């Protein structure tokens, strides 16, 4: 369980997160939605302990960071390192013993090739594989479906469902509403660094309609396309 109380974060004068209160329970999948720049990634970085913040983030595990897998929107990779070496590095960092990485290569990635030869989607799949093999209890996935092919999208959806079954917590952000609707138990809507509302599974359809109305509205008309 992760409890976030009164979480605020500013970059200089700009307040990115403003008094956020949320609770994430074990065995549940949570979605975070909102426009670009609304503070989703900053929230994720705060939960992961990659940013300092005001407020409080507590959990039922001793050192949350050590049992948390963070998938960044654009994961960083070293040049001249192979997929297998990347996985080994991340797994070793958590002192997890892993004997045969190839057997766990569910996305069929060319693990012996340099990551620099991978496509965007392959990089995302590699980063996801690595954090899954770290045996984490909490998963913070920032845009896990971005740039990933349809087959892998289906696989990632099933992985997230499996994580729930195993009693793990997953927090996901995505701009593809259908994937969130399929995997999440609750979705939080963010606006201007605040949580605007919490929506349960039964109300997902209403949320989608509301977001569509809000996002599209008469925006296209402004372009005066001819």
């Amino acid at each position, binding site marked *: 369980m992760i409890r976030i109380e009164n979480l605020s974060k500013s970059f200089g004068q700009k307040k990115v997160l403003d008094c956020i209160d949320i609770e994430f329970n074990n065995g549940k999948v949570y979605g975070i939605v909102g426009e670009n720049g609304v503070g989703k990634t900053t929230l994720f970085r705060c939960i*992961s*302990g*990659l940013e*300092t913040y005001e407020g409080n983030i507590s959990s039922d595990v001793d*050192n949350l*960071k*050590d*049992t948390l897998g*963070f998938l*960044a929107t654009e*994961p*960083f990779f*070293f*040049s*001249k*390192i*192979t997929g*297998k*070496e*990347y996985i*080994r*590095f*991340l797994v*070793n*960092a*958590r*002192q997890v013993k892993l004997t045969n990485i190839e057997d766990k290569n569910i996305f069929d990635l060319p693990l*012996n*090739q*340099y990551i*620099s*030869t991978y496509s965007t989607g392959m990089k995302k799949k590699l980063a996801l594989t690595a954090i899954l093999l*770290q045996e984490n209890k909490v998963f913070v996935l920032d845009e896990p479906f971005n740039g990933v092919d349809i087959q892998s999208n289906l696989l990632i959806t099933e992985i997230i469902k499996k994580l729930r079954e195993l009693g793990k917590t997953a927090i996901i952000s995505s701009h593809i509403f259908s994937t969130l609707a399929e995997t999440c138990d609750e979705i939080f809507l963010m606006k201007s660094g605040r949580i605007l509302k919490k929506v349960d599974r039964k109300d997902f359809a209403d949320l989608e309609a509301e977001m569509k109305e809000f996002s599209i509205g008469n925006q296209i008309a402004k372009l005066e396309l001819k």
Partner: protein
Amino acid sequence: MKEYFRLQSKILNRKFIDFGLPLLVAYTLLPILFVWFSNFLFAKTEFAGYVYPIIALGPILRMSEPKRNDFLKTVFSRQDYFKLRLVENLICCIPFLAFLIYQRLLIIAMVLLLLAILMARFNMDTKTNFTIPTPFGKKPFEFTVGFRKTFLAFAIAYLLTFISIMVHNFNLGGFSLILVVLVCFSYYSKPENVYYVWNFSTSSKTFLFGKITTCLTNFTLLGLPIVIALSIFFIENVNILIGFAFMCYAYLTAIVLAKYSAYPDEMNLPQAILLAMCLMFPPILIGVIPFFYSKSVKNLNPILHDSN
């Protein structure tokens, strides 16, 4: 094209400022250091004439990186692009050319000039499917990545060791070991992304201990063939060699700690000054290593969530 070079000089100036060097000091110090280093190299080994162009080609090779050049190709016309690459390469090798001419190594200077011109026409394609095998794959990342980028330097170092034995020149052998240390030094010059430190579920002290142990073990693996070969063929200098090897360990420990003493920022002037002082007067290492260590622990604690 003028705008491009204006931008490059701005970037360079910003790098100096970020490093903590006022521009006036930087532009005064840089030529002095260059001449000092060149003189030092030529005084220390008779093979400096061969090593020198290799050093000069380093930055030129870096500028042959395809991603960067593909971008330039999209911005400039074909003709301007080649002009630009040519000017860049010439700017990089002019100081080296001048020193080679001063040393009357005209043929080597000509070869360097020719290579610089030729390399303006080519990209070094790093996006290859061929993975260079490395003995360090089990413990990524510094030596795994570094070895793949610099394996040629080790080939040169081993070749120099072989030549030193052939011509019975212990100093040249010593230089080959220095080359290995310097290359290993370079693996710790840039800070890694915070994510890669954050991932470790260890205390700051254990993390640092692990980094130092990996560094020293891997250096031993690379340096041992040279040390063994020189010990066999220069038995009279074995004491110097052992002492020198231990100095290398101390310097490598210092560089690992210096990196994390500035982390997550890049090492800058204070670390550079202390390291330079250590190079000039090694006993300072006794004080510098614990200093870097305590600063590193302080920097790593918030990232590793270590409250000790």
